[in-house]
């Protein structure tokens, strides 16, 4: 399939979906509205809402707040995850002591922590950042831990034979290995940072995309809810593209899965 055909087909999917949405929410079929506008709005109203947000510029403030929360959650969660992952992997005894608690906290659905964070940290950005951190931390932590545990024994023996001291081992072997595992989970952890921010906003905030959606829902403004969802989706795609670019730059040394040799 050529690129052009592929692109045409991809656009076709969107056109068909939006078209069906428009038709079924505007014209009754056999005297029956399949997508009642009260619950499903319609594409034109949603588009109008999105355009209005951008035209008046209200949306930028909310986008900025969500972005800020996501970045902070990602940064703090990653730094914590790398530090603790490194520490546990190098100190098996500490890891063994904390193991049940790590599992316990990780098994907890993090959403239930949101009210506590709101209570502790208020309605500002930090309660959302905290929620995002609890999500990002564990992904990064487990990956870094695994990355250090699974350094090839041959590479390790080779490093020793090449005269590496304990400090050099950390710098030339453990650290790059841990980072590569962390970067390979970059999409997931960035995604969860955004989830933490939006869910936090949805549960109580004064600004942000989640807040926008929640406000629209509160007044049965379905067009607003859908518009918020579309803006959020576009926001996540843009972030994902940036992450892919960063990943390509950082993991040049890694074989692409298709060209991996046994």
């Amino acid at each position, binding site marked *: 399939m050529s690129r052009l055909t592929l692109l045409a087909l991809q656009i076709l999917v969107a056109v068909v979906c939006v078209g069906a949405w428009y038709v079924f929410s505007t014209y009754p079929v056999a005297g029956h509205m399949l997508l009642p506008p009260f619950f499903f709005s319609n594409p034109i109203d949603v588009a109008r809402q999105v355009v209005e947000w951008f035209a008046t510029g209200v949306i930028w403030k909310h986008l900025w707040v969500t972005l800020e929360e996501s970045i902070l959650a990602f940064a703090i969660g990653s730094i914590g995850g790398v530090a603790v992952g490194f520490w546990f992997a190098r100190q098996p005894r500490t890891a063994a002591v904390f193991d049940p608690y790590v599992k316990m906290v990780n098994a907890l659905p993090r959403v239930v922590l949101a009210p506590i964070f709101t209570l502790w940290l208020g309605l500002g950005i930090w309660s959302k950042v905290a929620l995002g951190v609890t999500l990002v931390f564990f992904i990064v932590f487990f990956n870094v831990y695994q990355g250090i545990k699974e350094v090839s024994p041959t590479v390790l023996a080779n490093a020793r034979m*090449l005269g590496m*001291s304990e400090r050099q081992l950390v710098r030339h072997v453990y650290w790059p290995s841990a980072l590569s595992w962390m970067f390979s989970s970059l999409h997931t952890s960035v995604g969860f940072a955004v989830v933490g921010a939006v869910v936090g906003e949805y549960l109580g905030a004064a600004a942000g995309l989640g807040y926008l959606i929640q406000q629209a829902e509160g007044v049965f403004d379905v067009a607003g809810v859908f518009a918020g969802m579309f803006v959020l989706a576009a926001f996540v795609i843009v972030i994902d593209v940036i992450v892919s670019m960063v990943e390509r730059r950082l993991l040049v040394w890694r074989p692409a899965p298709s060209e991996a040799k046994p």
Partner: protein
Amino acid sequence: MAQAAGTAASAVALNDVTVAFRVARGGVFTAVERASLNVADGEFVAIVGPTGCGKSTLLNVTAGLLAPAAGEADIFGARLSGLNRQAGYLFQADALFPWKTALENVAIGLETAGAPASEAKPRAREWLKKVGLAAFADRYPHMLSGGQRKRVGLAQVLIRDPKILLMDEPFGPLDAQTRQIMGNLLLDLWSADRKAVMFVTHDLEEAISLSDRVVIMSAGPASRIIGDFKVPLARPRDISEVKLDPAFHALHRDIWHKLKAEVVKGYAQAEGV
């Protein structure tokens, strides 16, 4: 046969080395039992034996990666404890650092010894040239072929100028042509600056064509050294030509005669017969 252990001239003197591993349910598996081996300075010794006979174990003891349960290893007359700082080790599996380029992989051995990058990099470039990879300095290991990775590995080890070179079936995974090319490259590099070499292989032809002496190990467990043959072939050698020499064939026949029984035993044990 081997000289008396602990001779000052010996680069490596293994004396009655026994290696045992703890296995499941409190059992003990003896990999090597009372093996003694002397390698003189500048001597190229090949170690041949059936699969699973503890050839690599012997190398790991010499490298100091593994402590023997009994017996001792002397390196240039000094008792070995901890890592063997005078040895370079070329592993069977891929041991390059995948996140470093070929150049960085070669340079790292100098950097660990405290050389600044400005000094290590040009020397690493020289070594890449010696192994024929000057044009591949900036490639990462996954962009190199198996043979090229082995060349980088060889440069990585030799740049440190170790007194003893340990090689564990280094060319095992390569195809026949590449093995021959690598063998000749190894002999070229080695003859320029003769180091003591312990070369483990299961390929008898490779062993004879490369080495000064071929040592045979019995099938495991508790394998021992059961044969020691001088290789009467002149140097410098070309690996493909030396195989046509009548002396090569005579020696091959002698060694194979001894080795065959062990190989059969090794297979029988591997299949649990």
